[in-house]
């Protein structure tokens, strides 16, 4: 069981000043090293004494990982840019307003001042069995305590469950998928650029990781192409406490209209699976259709196909359906 202690276990702290130094340290210490961004996920683990890294690599001094830069095709956000900076950055607010909306929905102002966008998309699952230090699949064991007839699984997955039923808790992740963002990852072999939707992995692929990052890999920045700049955006997050909580379900959509009909759309939801889910079937179904109640209803029904609720999270199915409906309608009507 998780027990909050006053003092976290000792570790050796490194504060590299460059990405190269950080990668060198990661390469030297491998799986013994823990990469620290804002620390809001990490310190929970450390204080609960469930994760006990020998080495912590604090990225706070790596200036090249901070800030927002305009590029020839959109903009690039350093992975260590705080959520508050993302929320208030004028260029992001002007062209990609869905991202500030999503970032502002994350946690509390104090946490957003410290939390980074790289950390927000790379944070670990919040399943309390897992966070409690129980030997579940995600922790390397051979059982999911949440997916049992008596398991407390109100916040857990309704889609793509594969042994583990934890969900991805990120608010910015679906917004980045809707914006067709690219994740820039430095690995020992060089730089990789992957689509945001492929940055996240489900338990079927690797039950112990939420993203493609392996020991030695580092998310350095997030590139947002201009493809969806200035589109019609929709972001909505439903949570138990409006002031500060993880999403039960959230939805992010970017739409380009042609007259009354939808010309292009990208839509993603989170909180329903171990990875944010891009709703490609919904996208294909609504393109060319008007933003009407019928289209929204159809989109909602398509979105929940294949949903398999657990004992206590059946409410997520209509919640997800209605959020998708609202996203298609642009929030102009009530679901």
């Amino acid at each position, binding site marked *: *069981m998780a027990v909050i202690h006053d003092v976290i276990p000792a570790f050796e702290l490194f504060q590299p000043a460059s990405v190269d130094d950080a990668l060198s340290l990661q390469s030297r210490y491998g799986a013994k090293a823990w990469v620290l961004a804002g620390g809001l996920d990490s310190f929970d683990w450390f204080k609960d004494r469930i994760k006990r890294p020998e080495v912590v690599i604090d990225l706070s001094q790596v200036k090249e990982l901070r800030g927002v830069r305009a590029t020839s095709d959109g903009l690039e956000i350093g992975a260590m840019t705080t959520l508050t900076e993302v929320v208030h950055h004028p260029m992001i607010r002007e062209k990609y307003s869905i991202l500030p909306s999503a970032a502002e929905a994350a946690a509390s102002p104090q946490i957003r001042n410290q939390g980074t966008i790289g950390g927000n998309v790379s944070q670990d699952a919040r399943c309390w069995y897992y966070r409690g230090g*129980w*030997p579940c699949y995600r*922790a*390397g*064991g*051979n*059982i*999911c*305590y949440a*997916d*049992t007839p008596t398991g407390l699984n109100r916040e857990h997955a309704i889609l793509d*469950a*594969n*042994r583990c039923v934890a969900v991805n808790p990120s608010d910015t992740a679906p917004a980045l998928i809707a914006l067709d963002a690219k994740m820039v990852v430095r690995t020992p072999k060089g730089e990789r650029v992957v689509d945001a939707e492929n940055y996240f*992995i*489900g338990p*079927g*692929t*690797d039950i112990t990781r939420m993203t493609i990052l392996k020991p030695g890999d580092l998310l350095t920045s997030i590139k947002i192409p201009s493809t969806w700049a200035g589109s019609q955006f929709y972001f909505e997050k439903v949570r138990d406490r409006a002031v500060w909580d993880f999403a039960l379900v959230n939805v992010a959509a970017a739409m380009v209209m042609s007259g009354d009909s939808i010309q292009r759309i990208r839509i993603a939801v989170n909180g329903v699976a171990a990875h944010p889910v891009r709703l490609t079937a919904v996208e294909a179904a609504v393109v060319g259709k008007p933003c009407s109640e019928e289209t929204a209803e159809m989109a909602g029904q398509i979105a929940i196909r294949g949903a*398999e609720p657990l004992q206590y999270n059946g409410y997520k199915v209509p919640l997800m359906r209605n959020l998708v409906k609202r996203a298609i309608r642009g929030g102009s009507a009530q679901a």
Partner: protein
Amino acid sequence: MNLIQWATSPWGQQVPTHISWILLWVSAIAGLSFLIVHALYVSIWAKKTAHADSSAGISPAVVAKIPERVPRHSLSARLFHAIMALSMLALLFTAFLPKVGVQFAWVTYHWIAGIVLSISVLYHIFDAFWFQDFWSIWPDKIDIEDAGNRVKRAMGQDAPAPRKFAKYPLENKLYHLAVMCAGLSAIITGLFMMKRVRTPFFERNPYLFSDMTWGWMYVLHGLAGVGFVALVITHIYMAIRPEKFFITKSMIFGWMDREHYLEHHDPRRWSVAPETPASATPASPESKKAPA
């Protein structure tokens, strides 16, 4: 080095969870080492096995009746072998590719291959009991005696020349025994483990057994799995060795030629003549039924 991974259950009990995956490499290296040592032994040290003249006492009429193509494996046995081999390879790839870094959603493919293997093995057991010569694959007294004699002769001691084989050489029989043990372990534990994942067949029930029982079940499944890595390596190696290739061919085409039969097999221990005359009385239960 821990060969078994342990965890603390929610009730504070130390329970096994898996084997250590280092055993995968141990098994692979063991399999590869075996084939290297065997290949060196055969090419450098081993002398051609001198069999006792097993033709003595067999009527020339019986020898004359041995067909040019000696039937060895029925179509159903060959189909079983092919299906079992494919499902086994699918199981090994889906189990171990993710462990060596090739990430994909493997669980569904794994249990589907497991179901195919289980059904094929059930069929094989039924077929072997009722339609094949069930005892022909089990080591018998003659095999044990001859194995002892072969070892003595290899060490330069005096011992009678080993007799020719029955339908299966002792090595085949021992390999079958090892595969049977590992296979049944993997299948039985695997079928129980399906209660832990979502399938159309069972309602999930991870609390069917205690954490300790589940843990040992995972360990046994893992040991059988990594054991199969070495077993498959040695099997493929033996199948492609030139001097064994006639056996491999017989698993593909169903028959072996008369020359190989007479060179390696004792007609009294594996009778294939259409009608066995009284002078060539079968020496073991292995020839009681028609060849598979």
